[in-house]
């Protein structure tokens, strides 16, 4: 993947976030404050506006721009969380203009570390980490896994948050009552990865 591919990915993420804006906010309304869709839509729209004119082929620089925009524009917990993730990934891909699959996995793993450092949450806490961590473990251990299988697994991880009791984030205030609803951040993370895998399919073909 080169800088153009990353741009394309980010733009597609934005499109899907805009489409799913109401859905994401609805999920957040059930177990949080109902703004996750609005937050993400505001953040990613601004990201797309800003990277439109981004010329530098350095992927790290692009992701740094994405990170700073999310940090500035999202407003909710997901802002510093996704912002930190992109910032850490940008660190790995600094100066990189052509990113291999293993570079990408490495960058995303750093991103996950950033999310965990920032939010102090672990797998099972009903947060976006419940998508990021199992997915990246699987992909790293089996780099040959098909994109189709990765997509299915991402959806599975997202679905898996439904039966969890939230231990971090606003939903934790609900205790057991948070069970039964998908974690909104896991759904936006699903969108992020699902779109990434679609893009990798395109790049490969």
């Amino acid at each position, binding site marked *: 993947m080169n800088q153009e591919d990353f741009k394309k990915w980010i733009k597609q993420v934005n499109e899907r976030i805009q489409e799913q804006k109401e859905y994401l906010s609805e999920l957040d309304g059930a177990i949080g404050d109902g703004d996750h869709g609005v937050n993400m839509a505001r953040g990613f729209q601004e990201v797309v506006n800003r990277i439109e004119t981004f010329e530098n082929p350095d992927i790290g620089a692009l992701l740094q721009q994405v990170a700073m925009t999310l940090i500035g524009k999202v407003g909710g917990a997901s802002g510093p969380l996704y912002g930190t993730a992109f910032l850490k990934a940008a660190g790995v891909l600094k100066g990189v203009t052509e990113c291999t699959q293993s570079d990408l996995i490495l960058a995303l793993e750093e991103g996950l570390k950033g999310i965990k450092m920032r939010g102090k949450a672990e797998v099972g806490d009903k947060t976006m980490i419940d998508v990021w961590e199992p997915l990246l473990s699987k992909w790293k251990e089996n780099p040959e896994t098909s994109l189709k299988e990765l997509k299915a697994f991402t959806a599975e991880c997202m679905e898996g948050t439904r039966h969890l009791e939230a*231990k971090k984030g*606003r939903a*934790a*205030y609900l205790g057991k009552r948070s069970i039964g609803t998908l974690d909104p951040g896991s759904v936006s993370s699903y969108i992020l990865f699902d779109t990434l895998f679609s893009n990798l399919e395109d790049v490969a073909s």
Partner: protein
Amino acid sequence: MSVGIVLVSHSHELVKGLADILSQVQPDVKIGIAGGTEEGDIGTSAFKIKSAIEAVDDGEGVAVLFDLGSALLNAELAQEMMDSESKIVFCDAPIVEGAYAAVIEAGIGGSLEEVVQSAEGVKTVSKLAGQN
């Protein structure tokens, strides 16, 4: 029908802003605010507090949160001036963090006792531990 929440502060803006945060989380819980003096200066007013309590009370009871002790003096006076049989509890809880927990408990249909407990329970929770 749910327990009502009343926020009493020396500043109108403070409780206005707090009510905005709470309404985002639980649009259906009735939140009354009484901030500032009758002139809108920094201070509290027993009459404002009385009106705020009456406005949110629909029989399930009212949990009152306040910022500083002098607000409590006026809140207790407000309660004495009310002739209704309202169940009113003054929470030994931080106004912002307590109100957040209270409004969530009220939103899921908690009783007055449960709402007060939720509000008071936040004192023992570390704010740095990552629940947010």
